[in-house]
């Protein structure tokens, strides 16, 4: 389907996000918002507790999934997923 590695990786990422949202039963708009919060935490780690609380409340993760200390890989994951989800919402891919 995808001729170059980048397109193939993006396709897999989009598919993974769809499956993830279906599993946790969370609307894509919530993932977009939590991604925006993750961006803010990367710039200001003091916001980490608030981010962690929001991520747990929205059932995107469970309490044991996130440490009390700042976890940048997790922030990178949510930030990237939020961006991709936003693109899919804009292009109509999310409903497909």
């Amino acid at each position, binding site marked *: 389907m995808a001729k170059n590695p980048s397109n193939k990786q993006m396709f*897999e990422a989009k598919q993974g996000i769809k499956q993830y949202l279906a599993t946790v039963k969370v609307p894509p708009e919530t993932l977009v918002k939590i991604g925006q919060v993750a961006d803010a935490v990367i*710039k200001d780690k003091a916001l980490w507790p608030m981010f962690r609380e929001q991520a747990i409340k929205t059932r995107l993760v469970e309490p044991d999934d996130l440490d009390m200390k700042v976890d*940048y890989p*997790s922030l*990178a994951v949510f*930030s*990237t997923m939020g*961006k991709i989800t936003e693109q899919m919402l804009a292009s109509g891919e999310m409903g497909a």
Partner: protein
Amino acid sequence: MGKFWSKVKSAFKAVASVALVVVAIVQPQLIPAIGNALGFTGAAATAAGAATITTASSLAQGNSLDVALKQGATAGVTSFVGVNVATSTGSAAVGSAAGSAAGTAVAGGSGADIIRNAVSGGIGAGVGDATGSVAAGKGAGTFIATGGNVNAAINTAVSTELTSLAKQGVAPYVASAKETLSNLVATPGTTPEQQAIAGVQGLVDESKAQPGTQLADAGAGTTTDAGRLNTVTVTSPKYQAGAPENVLPYTSTDVTKPSGGAAGSLSTVTVTAPRYEAGAPENVLPYTSSDVTTTPTSDKQPVAQKPKDPTAREQTITPSIYFTGVTPTGGAPLSQALGTNLPSFPTTGATVGLTGERGAGEIESKESGKERQNVWNEASLRLKDALGV
């Protein structure tokens, strides 16, 4: 982080493994941002961010920690070496600190600390390569090997990896990285590794464009000084006791002959060194081209002429009296000039008109008003002769 990746829900773990792979594609600015958040700045921030994402991605994909660390360190090395190949600045200090940090990391660090220190270890090895010091890379490896035995497998793996990178040197490593990544370069800057390679090339090009800097050839793995003009210094021989004053004859053949103007030979320019003073350093005459003035001289010097005064008026004598058709019959020059010697000139009354009613030789007094005296002087004699009386 280990806790997060080991206990995270399978659904999130699965999506994280694919999301981290495309971080550089979706938002490349996130990589240095994470590096900054970890406390790194500049090129090291990009290296740290790249290593963080790479390591986490590797772990999310199910790789073991040692493999993930090696991949993360490699990403950090790739990014950081890319910068140091061209700049070669501040590498020693960074390398020293990085080796220590790497040893701490494998000795028992966890989570973000492990990643951070693994990156530092990679930086240490990269700096060793960039500076051409294999010893630096070996030093980092040795430190890791003796830094603890909490996890012998990781210890050995990272140590071997870093030492191997140092032994390879910059050029083979970058070359191999280029070859490995050549298949991935669909769009420049889509992955940390691609960004690093692009950065290497860009910085090399930049260094080549700046004279006076070191030129780094990533392909050959060499750095050379760019060409520059050197300062020319003329050094006179040391003064020897009893010898005449030091003189450096500077002949005209060393001076470019000026074009145009009168042909002539250039005068000899002599550079004279000051006398050597006891205890003074060796005489050195800093010589620059601006110190020499060439003045052409000619064998035949032109005669000097006073310049014309543009305001001066030339005085010319133009005759205003012309005689035509009548040939003078003789007589004195004055009578000729006056025409009194002409046949048509009336002689009667002429004497009266010129001398007044006075006798020959009588001169009228101009001031006293007294009676004229009958005297002859030179003026009267000339007048008498002119009148022909």
